[in-house]
């Protein structure tokens, strides 16, 4: 987004501007619990991936013990390990999650700075004339532009971080779907493994439980991501409105 600067602003315009800043600040504050929900839900990913990895190793050992009768189950467990690798790789890529907090915190800080600059501008607008006022007005206008740019950059960063996490959730969703199919197939193949049937049924049930937990984690994250993304887009619109307000010329 670009900014259209002007040092001439009405007091009413500055007050409207302050109102929008407060709305944006409220939006960021409302977003923080959603960001916490996302991080809290996604923090379970590492543990569940590890559980799934151990389960697939044990299932593969059991398939080995079952000999030729366990051949099809072994193929399925190897596929499961591939899925686990994908989950573990996702977990290492937590930049998006960390970015959510960083961008929220920075946005709040710069919004607070911007609000103070706006209050100073409003005070100045009614109080001064002459060269000193021009210098002060120009200095505050430059400060306003600086902080507005910072807020815009942070909101864009927040949106990028949310998009990153949303992508991660989509991949987990894909893995969940595939793992569910594998669990169903293992349960089906278990019937053909004779005395090992009980062992493989147990593997399939445990895998379904892990899959269910992953799905719950993902559902919670997805809802929080939707709300955060909506809040972020609202902030973006409000910021664009602020940039337009920057062009209000004093009567």
């Amino acid at each position, binding site marked *: 987004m670009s900014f259209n600067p002007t040092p001439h602003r009405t007091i009413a315009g500055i007050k409207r501007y302050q109102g929008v800043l407060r709305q944006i600040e409220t939006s960021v504050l409302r977003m923080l619990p959603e960001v916490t929900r996302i991080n809290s839900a996604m923090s379970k990913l590492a543990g569940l991936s590890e559980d799934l990895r151990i389960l697939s190793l044990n299932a593969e050992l059991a398939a080995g013990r079952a000999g030729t009768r366990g051949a099809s189950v072994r193929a399925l467990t190897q596929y499961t390990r591939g899925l686990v690798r994908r989950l573990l790789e996702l977990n290492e890529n937590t930049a998006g999650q960390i970015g959510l907090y960083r961008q929220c915190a920075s946005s709040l800080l710069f919004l607070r*700075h911007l609000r*103070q600059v706006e209050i100073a501008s409003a005070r100045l607008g009614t109080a*001064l004339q002459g060269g000193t*006022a021009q*210098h002060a007005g120009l200095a505050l206008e430059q400060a306003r532009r600086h*902080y507005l740019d910072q807020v815009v950059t942070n909101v864009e960063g927040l949106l990028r971080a949310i998009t990153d996490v949303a992508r991660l959730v989509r991949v987990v969703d894909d893995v969940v779907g595939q793992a569910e199919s594998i669990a169903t197939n293992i349960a089906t193949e278990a019937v053909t493994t004779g005395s090992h049937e009980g062992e493989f049924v147990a593997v399939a049930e445990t895998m379904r439980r892990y899959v269910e937990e992953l799905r719950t984690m993902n559902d919670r994250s997805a809802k929080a991501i939707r709300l955060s993304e909506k809040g972020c887009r609202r902030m973006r619109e409000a910021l664009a409105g602020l940039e337009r307000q920057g062009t209000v010329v004093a009567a």
Partner: protein
Amino acid sequence: MMRCFTLYSEGSHRWLLFGQDTDANEAAVDTNQVAVSANGSTMLLDPGGMELFPAAMGALVHEIDIATVHNLFLSHQDPDIGSALPLWRQVVAPGAAIHVPELWTGYIAHFDTDAVLSPIPDEGGEVALSNQVKLRFLPAHYLHSSAAFCVYDPIARVLFSGDIGAALLPAGATRDIWVHDFAAHIQHMAGFHRRYLGSREARDAWIQSVMHLPIDILVPQHGLALRGQDVMRFLDWLSGLSIASGLDAYRRGIASRP
């Protein structure tokens, strides 16, 4: 509305105090912001906290061209001293020097990571506002902060004493900036000095270091300024004051319970 008081004025050489903001949030302790100008160059002393910035900026620009502020000084690291630093840095002259105690540079950076700080060594230093007007940073370590400085102007004979001489006055009242009855003023200073000043050795060393200086005006960061004979009265009172009252808490505190 933040008020402005002229502490000293001789030609372009001025000491101005900005404070007693009638719109200030009472939850935050009242502070004095000081500007020293000479020959078109200004230094802001303890420019204040973030919430105070609009009022301080509004009051300052009535008196001083913001483009002449080439120096900022933070006596120590507390938020009421300089949490508005990032805001001031945006509006004062580009590249203005920010003088801070060397010990606190890494901590003050938490207010403003982009600020380039000019560290003041423990021994102190001097900054020239003009060929004649040179401001001296005098050590005031452990009073109350472990690294703190006062600012002395030998021509104006003004000492900005930071937290030394500070008084916490009842909120809301607008008043003159000068102490008129030192004996009556002691009640507003005593609690602050007893609890916030922690080192008797530092107190004695500081008094020794400033006693020989000609000081007409002593202006603290909180409360009222002292002038004339009240400066010596204050030094005398401070030298005999029992300080570091927080030590009593070790005896009374929860750790001493069985």
